[in-house]
C-alpha cells in the first residue's frame, strides 16, 4: 500500500480522536464559579442593551430562566422582591431567557411583575459561555468583574440549592467587598 495512503489514514484517525476528545472535554466541563465572568451583550425585551463588562463596579446577578420552567416560577417572586430591595444599592439583576418563545416569555414577565432587565438569549450564545445545564441557574459577578459563585438550581429554602438567606448574604458580602 502506498505510503501516502497509510499517512492519510493515520492523520485522519488521529484527527477524529482529537475532535471527539475535545468535544467530550468541553461537554463535561462544569459551570464556572470563579475567574473573569464571560462577557456578553443582552438586548432586553424592552429594547435596552446591557453589556456585562460595562457593569464593572456593580454587583451583577445573572439569572437564566424560561417560562416553561416550573422551578423558575417558584423563585421569580423572590428575585423580583430582592431586586426591588437592592436596585439602589449598586446591584444589577439580568434575566437571561433561555430557549423560550418570546410571547410566553413576555407573559411570564407580566405574570410575575418582573421589572429588572430581561432579554432573550438570542441565538443561544450566552448560555454556552456559562455552560448552563438547565434552568434556573444564577451567577454572581463581583464589582471586579469576576464570578463570585453560582446557584445551579432554584433559589429557595427547600430546594437543596441556595437558600433565600444565603442569596441575600451573598449580595451583602459582594457589596461589602472592594
Amino acid at each position, binding site marked *: *500500500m*502506498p505510503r501516502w*495512503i497509510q499517512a*492519510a*489514514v493515520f492523520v*485522519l484517525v488521529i484527527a*477524529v480522536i482529537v*475532535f471527539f476528545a475535545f468535544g467530550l472535554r468541553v461537554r463535561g466541563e462544569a459551570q464556572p464559579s470563579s475567574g473573569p465572568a464571560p462577557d456578553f451583550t443582552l438586548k432586553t425585551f424592552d429594547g435596552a442593551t446591557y453589556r456585562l463588562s460595562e457593569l464593572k463596579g456593580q454587583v451583577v446577578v445573572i439569572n437564566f430562566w*424560561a*417560562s*416553561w420552567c416550573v422551578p423558575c416560577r417558584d423563585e421569580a417572586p423572590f428575585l423580583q422582591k430582592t431586586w426591588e430591595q437592592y436596585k439602589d444599592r449598586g446591584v444589577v439583576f439580568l434575566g437571561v431567557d433561555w*430557549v*423560550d*418563545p*418570546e*410571547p*410566553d416569555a413576555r407573559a411570564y414577565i407580566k405574570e410575575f411583575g418582573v421589572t429588572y432587565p430581561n432579554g*432573550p438569549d*438570542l*441565538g*443561544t*450564545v450566552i448560555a454556552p459561555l456559562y455552560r448552563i445545564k*438547565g434552568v434556573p441557574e444564577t451567577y454572581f459577578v463581583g464589582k471586579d468583574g469576576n464570578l463570585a459563585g453560582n446557584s445551579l438550581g432554584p433559589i429557595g429554602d427547600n430546594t437543596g440549592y441556595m437558600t433565600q438567606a444565603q442569596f441575600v448574604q451573598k449580595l451583602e458580602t459582594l457589596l461589602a467587598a472592594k
Partner: protein
Amino acid sequence: MRRRFLLMAFSLAMVALALLAVTPAHAQGPNLDDETNRIAKTLYCPVCPNTPLDVCSTQACAQWRALIKEMLQQGKTEEQIRAYFVQQYGDVVLGAPPAQGFNWLAYILPAIGIVLGAAIAWFTVRQWIVRRGEGAPPAQVTVPKEYADRIEKDLKEL
C-alpha cells in the same frame, strides 16, 4: 314568497361556498396540525437533545409547536419559520449543521473516509491478485543419484 326564499337560500349558499374557497389551506384545522408536525419533525429543542420537536413531550417543546402553528396561521413559510428558530435559538435547533465554515468538516470527513477506505480496499485486493498470479515458486526437488541413474536406465530400456 317561496321563490324569494329559495333565491335567498341559494345566494347564501353561494356566498358560503365562495368564502370556503378563498380560505387558505393552511388555516384549516387538521392540515395546520399536520403542517406544524411536519416542520416540528425537522427541529430540535436544546432542552431535550436528540428528540425531534414533534415527539418531545416537555412543556418547552409544546410551546415551540404552538409557536410554529401560530406562525403558520400568520402565513409564514417553512423557510421563514426555520430561519426564525435559528435566529432565536441558534443552529442547535437544526437536525444537521448548516454547510458553512467549520461545519463543512461534518460533510467532508465521511466522504474522505469513504475514498480512503476504497483506496485501501483497492490496493489490498490488487496485492492479493498479484500474489496469486505469481503462484508459488517451484520446489527444488533433489533426487538421489542412484534413483536418477535407475530412472535413466529404465527409460532407455523402454
